[in-house]
Each structure stands twice: as structure tokens, then as C-alpha cells.
């Protein structure tokens, strides 16, 4: 049999720069690096917390350096990108959602998801900042006994 000769084009390491859709994908994936580093920063904080107050304060001083604040600012932006893209992909892992026979558009899922995320964020912020309405604050205190987060 005559062999079928073919040419296999190489896949260069920068393939993802050739197409805007790939660039967006890589940016989305890059958010993972920030979560990873952020988790390590927290882990380091936890470690200092087990050591001594001085060590822990040292960690907090590190957090207050401009470089670290800049890092967190960028990380927050990527986290936001993650939130939006996560809800774009989420409906793809479930059977096609239908409401009254019509397919629910991805945009609707994103709006609901991002809305939920915003609500939770608001709650956490209010809790930490001590801005919860009294009734809710009481409920939270029952759940997380004194000392809480604030």
C-alpha cells in the first residue's frame, strides 16, 4: 500500500496569541494564578497566626506594602473576570435549561450568577464592616460565636 504522506504543522507555544478568542481564554485561565497566590498568602498568614502576634503583624505589614496592595488590586480584577466567565460556562455543565419551552439564554444565567455573587459580597462586607442590620447581626453572632470576624 502506498503510504499516505501528510504534513503535520507544529503547534507553536504562542498559538494562543493568534486569535482573540484564545487570548480571552488565556486571560480567564490566568485568574487561576491569582487565586493560587492569594491562597498561599492566606496560608502564610495562617502560619504566622499560629506562631506569634509579632509574626502575624509582620504578615499584616507585608500586606500593607504597595506591591502587595497592587497585587491584590490586579487579583481582584481577575477574580471579577473569573466570576463572570464562570457563570458563562456553568450552564454548559447542565442539561439545556428551558423555561416554558424556551431555552434560557446564557446571559440570563450570568446575570443571576453575578447578582448572587454581588449579594453575597455585600453581605460579607456588611458583616465585616459591622454594618449588618441588628437582627441579622444577631443571627450571625449565634452562628459564629463571639470573636467572629470583627
Amino acid at each position: 500500500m502506498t503510504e499516505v504522506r501528510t504534513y503535520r504543522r507544529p503547534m507553536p507555544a504562542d498559538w494562543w496569541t493568534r486569535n482573540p478568542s484564545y487570548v480571552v481564554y488565556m486571560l480567564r485561565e490566568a485568574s487561576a494564578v491569582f487565586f493560587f497566590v492569594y491562597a498561599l498568602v492566606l496560608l502564610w498568614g495562617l502560619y504566622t497566626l499560629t506562631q506569634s502576634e509579632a509574626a502575624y503583624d509582620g504578615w499584616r505589614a507585608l500586606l500593607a506594602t504597595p506591591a502587595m496592595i497592587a497585587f491584590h488590586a490586579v487579583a481582584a480584577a481577575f477574580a471579577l473576570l473569573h466570576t463572570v466567565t464562570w457563570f458563562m460556562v456553568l450552564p454548559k455543565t447542565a442539561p439545556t435549561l428551558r423555561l416554558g419551552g424556551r431555552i434560557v439564554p446564557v446571559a440570563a444565567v450570568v446575570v443571576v450568577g453575578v447578582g448572587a455573587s454581588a449579594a453575597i459580597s455585600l453581605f460579607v462586607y456588611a458583616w465585616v464592616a459591622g454594618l449588618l442590620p441588628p437582627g441579622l447581626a444577631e443571627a450571625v453572632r449565634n452562628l459564629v460565636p463571639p470573636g467572629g470576624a470583627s
Partner: protein
Amino acid sequence: MKLKRSQEPIFWLLFGGGGTLAALVGVVLIVITGILVPTGTLPPDTMSYAAMHAFAATLFGKVAIFLVISLLLWHGVHRMAATAHHVGLASAHTAQIVLRGFAALATAACAYLLTGL
């Protein structure tokens, strides 16, 4: 065609858990711990040694800290392994072994530290 069963589901579930957590609270946590508290925008004792100690002493606190740190790590390494492969840094397999090994160690360390509090 040779088909070998993938062990991916377990890591994918960790990735998915981390991704969902990150999507819901990622932004607010980073903003609070990384920007608002260090810049003093929130009351100074918000993350004080005493407050955090007390928080980590509760069961809720332990679980919350553990989930945030470990799941974000597992989430992170999952995509980082793929990206490392994408840009030609390592084969998908090597990247997974290295990064997942690291995540496993860090998870263990986190659990260990929390039990000490």
C-alpha cells in the same frame, strides 16, 4: 483505539468547588483582606491578631479558612497545569503531578495549622 479511564473527576470536583467559591466570594475576600484592611479603610482591628485567633478557634472559622485556602489552591493548580501545558512549559502529565502534589501538601499544612489553633 485505546481508552484509559481518567482519574480526572476527583480533581475536577475540587476545581469546580474552588471555582464556584471563587466566583461567589473571590472578589469580596480579595478586596477586604488585600485592599480594604491593609489600607486601613476598614476598622484597624478587623483582622487583628486577637480577632483572627478567635475566629479560627470556632468551628465555622476553621472550616471557612480551610475551604477558602484549599479549594482556591486546587482550583488554581487545575488551570495552571493546563496553561503550563498550553504554553509548552511541561507536558500536561508532569505539570499535573508537580502542581497537584504541591496543592496536596499545602492542603495538609493548612489542616495541620488549623488544628493547632
